[in-house]
């Protein structure tokens, strides 16, 4: 079904990106509706994170167009990019917590930089956010004192503390045991429902994809080769999709 153009929050069209002369993305296109949860599946090193970083302006594609909330991202200067980034939360693969700051300071940081909230409201928001991810007791710990799963939760809390409309997840369950990965995936769904978040999740964890995805796109050879729901893709007879599902499960 074709989506109404006004519903499209993220619109990626014919994006090309290469490194050292080697094309990683070869004309990728993707449209994500408001409120939808899109999952990008693919093998390691295939360019999933490159696409995510291009959407948020950390990488600049050589060709193509990326629109976020109708605004073109490609070719923007730092100031305009920062305006667009206020709508986007980004969860990094290894959380990317500022290791010289406590958990509290990590969460305060985006609020201090992006909002004019008074001190008591910042403190209230940080505590509320940590309760949401079930880590209220870790508020004064340093990132080095947290487990992998806790770091992911704090990273997630930091990404959504400014209430962005869009959240981009880069391998949110990488390096976690299956139980913790399941918990993180459930948390992503819960937060998306609670705050009406539109998300793109890059992963090669099929369990995570199953839990969070409204639609899955498989990236192979620099383009999306297949798109559909988890069940639709699972039933496909295509050798690539079957190989992928069997390999991961």
């Amino acid at each position, binding site marked *: 079904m074709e989506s109404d153009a006004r519903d499209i929050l993220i619109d990626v069209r014919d994006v090309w990106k290469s490194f050292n002369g080697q094309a990683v993305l070869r004309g990728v296109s993707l449209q994500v509706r408001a409120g939808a949860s899109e999952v990008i599946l693919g093998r390691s090193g295939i360019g999933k994170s490159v696409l995510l970083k291009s959407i948020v302006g950390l990488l600049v594609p050589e060709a193509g167009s990326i629109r976020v909330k109708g605004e073109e991202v490609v070719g923007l200067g730092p100031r305009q990019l920062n305006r667009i980034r206020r709508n986007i939360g980004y969860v990094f693969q290894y959380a*990317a917590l500022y290791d010289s700051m406590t958990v509290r300071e990590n969460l305060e940081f985006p609020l201090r930089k992006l909002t004019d909230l008074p001190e008591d409201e910042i403190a209230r928001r940080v505590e509320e956010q940590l309760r949401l991810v079930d880590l209220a007791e870790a508020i004064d710990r340093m990132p080095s004192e947290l487990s992998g799963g806790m770091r992911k939760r704090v990273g997630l809390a930091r990404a959504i503390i400014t209430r962005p409309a869009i959240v981009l997840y880069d391998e949110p369950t990488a390096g976690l045991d299956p139980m913790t990965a399941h918990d993180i995936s459930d948390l992503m769904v819960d937060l998306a429902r609670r705050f009406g978040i539109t998300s793109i999740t890059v992963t090669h964890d099929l369990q995570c994809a199953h839990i969070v995805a409204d639609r899955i796109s498989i990236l192979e050879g620099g383009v999306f080769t297949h798109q559909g729901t988890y069940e639709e893709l699972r039933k496909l007879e295509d050798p690539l999709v079957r190989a992928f599902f069997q390999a991961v499960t």
Partner: protein
Amino acid sequence: MKQIPTAKLVELYYRRALSAMEEIYGITIFGLRFFRYVFVPPYEWGEVRKHMDELGAKSIPLLTVVGTIMGLILALQSRPTLDRFGAGAFLPAMIALTIVRELGPVITALIVAGRVSSGIGAELGSMKVTEQIDALEVSSVDPYNYLVVTRVLACILMLPLLTVYVDFLSIFGGFIAEVLAGNTTFQLYFSDVISATTFLDLIPGVGKTAVFGFIIGIIGAYEGFHTTRGTEGVGRAATTAVVLASLNIIFVDMIIVQLTLMFFGA
């Protein structure tokens, strides 16, 4: 032993020269950005204060030891030579001028380069490979302004202060050596020191350390910002930062000494 063909050797040197030129160009552009950013808001004064403490004040214990011993050694080494020429009475003046004009600024800068430039390189390198710099950027914070400008400014502000501190300690170290040898008194030594040194000796000596501070900060930050290949790259960034900062301090000092002699005389 296997010999490398001349053509390959030429190509190897050509590549190395090209890579060195790229590095020099990169550091120059990276350094010039500082002057564009430093005058433009947002001003991160809290971060500058934090780094002044971290990079500057925490260097004091090391500089205290080095500064005192440097003065002590200078006095012990120079006394026999000056006595041989009947110039022992000039020792306080010689120590003061040597320390204030040259040794104090350069030794302070080299010590701080070893401690701070590598620290900045390793810290920013580690932030780079763990995507913390990207995290700053997606939080709409300019990493150059937040991480580089604050550290370089802290180095520029702290190095002259540390140099004055080391100058004083070194002159005092010279006094200790002289007193222990029974050659002088507090009053005699320091009246010789004060009458021998003028502001024209102190100002260029201390002033050039602001330039050294800029070099230390910028090179450390450049190496950290351009770290690749994970933790191995972090180690390399720290080492390269110290080597390049130390070399540049010596090279720039040579130019500043020439300019000082040209404008202020001997």
